[in-house]
């Protein structure tokens, strides 16, 4: 009989002795084995399924064999899609000028169907991946806050109702002009064709300006209107 089978004391407590012993393994009858084997097979199947579903990903990392683990940290620059637009004098409202046609003066749009334009500004891919630039316009909102807005019209999406395809009453066109190509703005996003290539590379810029074709007439008597132009990195 080996030592372990002699019930060597494992722990002595006041009045008690704790020991461990090894006796003969309990005999398993053929009937008991038949009952045990399905359970063991089931446990093996569950363990196999767990391994197949990637439970090992929860395991702790392998200890460093040299005994010391030094935590390290690295800062990464994630891929970013981004667009930025230059601003005149830190103002997000870009004024129109150079007005002509109808009853216009230099800085004021006249009727019918006068034209004004903005200064040039840059649209810049300020991210680190190539991206498409989309652009969208909006209705022209009068400063009195009324609902007599000017609808945005264009030759394809929402045709203008005036003579010769020009904007009708309470309608206007807003054109995004690039160096060689232009985009009639719509209220929904569309590719900015003022960008000469289909995508802008990281750090690449394009120079653009806005040109407005005003309405034939206006219901609202406000003297100032504002419209929104949004550039989207897609």
């Amino acid at each position, binding site marked *: 009989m080996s030592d372990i089978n002699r019930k060597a004391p494992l722990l002595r407590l006041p009045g008690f002795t704790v020991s461990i012993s090894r006796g003969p393994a*309990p005999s398993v009858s053929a009937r008991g084995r038949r009952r045990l084997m399905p359970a063991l097979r089931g446990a093996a199947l*569950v363990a196999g399924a767990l391994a197949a579903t990637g439970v090992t990903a929860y395991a702790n990392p392998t200890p460093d064999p040299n005994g010391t683990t030094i935590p390290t940290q690295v800062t990464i620059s994630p891929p970013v*899609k*981004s*667009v930025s637009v230059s601003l005149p004098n830190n103002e997000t409202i*870009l004024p129109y000028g150079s007005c002509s046609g109808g009853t216009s003066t230099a800085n*004021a749009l006249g*009727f019918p169907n006068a034209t004004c334009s903005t200064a040039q500004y840059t649209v810049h891919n300020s991210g680190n991946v190539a991206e498409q630039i989309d652009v969208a316009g909006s209705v022209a909102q009068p*400063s009195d806050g009324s609902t007599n807005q000017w609808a945005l019209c264009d030759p394809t999406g929402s045709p203008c109702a005036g003579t010769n395809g020009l904007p009708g009453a309470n309608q206007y066109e807003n054109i995004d002009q690039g160096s060689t190509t232009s985009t009639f703005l719509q209220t929904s996003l569309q590719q900015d064709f003022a960008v000469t290539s289909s995508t802008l590379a990281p750090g690449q810029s394009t120079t653009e300006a806005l040109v407005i074709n005003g309405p034939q007439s206006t219901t609202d008597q406000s003297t100032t209107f504002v419209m*929104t132009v949004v550039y989207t990195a897609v």
Partner: protein
Amino acid sequence: MRLALGGAVLGAAALAATPLGASASVGTGVGADPIVLTQTAQPGQSYALPALYLVNTGTETSRYAVHVARIEKGQQRAVPAAWIVVPAGPISLAPKAAADVPLTLDVPANAAPGDYMTDVVAATLTGATGSAGASLGTQAATQLRFSIGNAGSWLPWPPPGWVLMSLLAAVVVVGGVVGVRRSGLRFNVERRR
């Protein structure tokens, strides 16, 4: 009648002829990698999505709003905006500052199974009131994708990690007990006289 669409300070000719300096800009940047829910969503459940990485790439402090809109085309089903919970208030970021914007997917109980796709859009908020002209804004969009499984599935698959770990622990405990019993080892506690 004439309408002012531009400021009266700058001359129109100068406006049209002179490019603006690039001293100030507004910009919006988001993480370019699509936001993907790796597990199959189940109707009636909520899921925390990977956060949207938002960065102010302009030179001015800007306020941003996040919304959901389908921009890119694809075969996947469209996602109703109400399914994606985004922060309600604007997010203010200093130049070059970034934030991780939390997103939650709430799948209605009657959602149809299938693959879904939309875009998460971060946009600058412009203060357009009281001025005249074109209010320039920027926004950036990143794709969001997830799949919805069949309702009533007895087990969400793949099962959550805690379910797997519990099953593994149960297998180890049962195996250990059976092994000790079969080895014949006995722990004895005797009272001394």
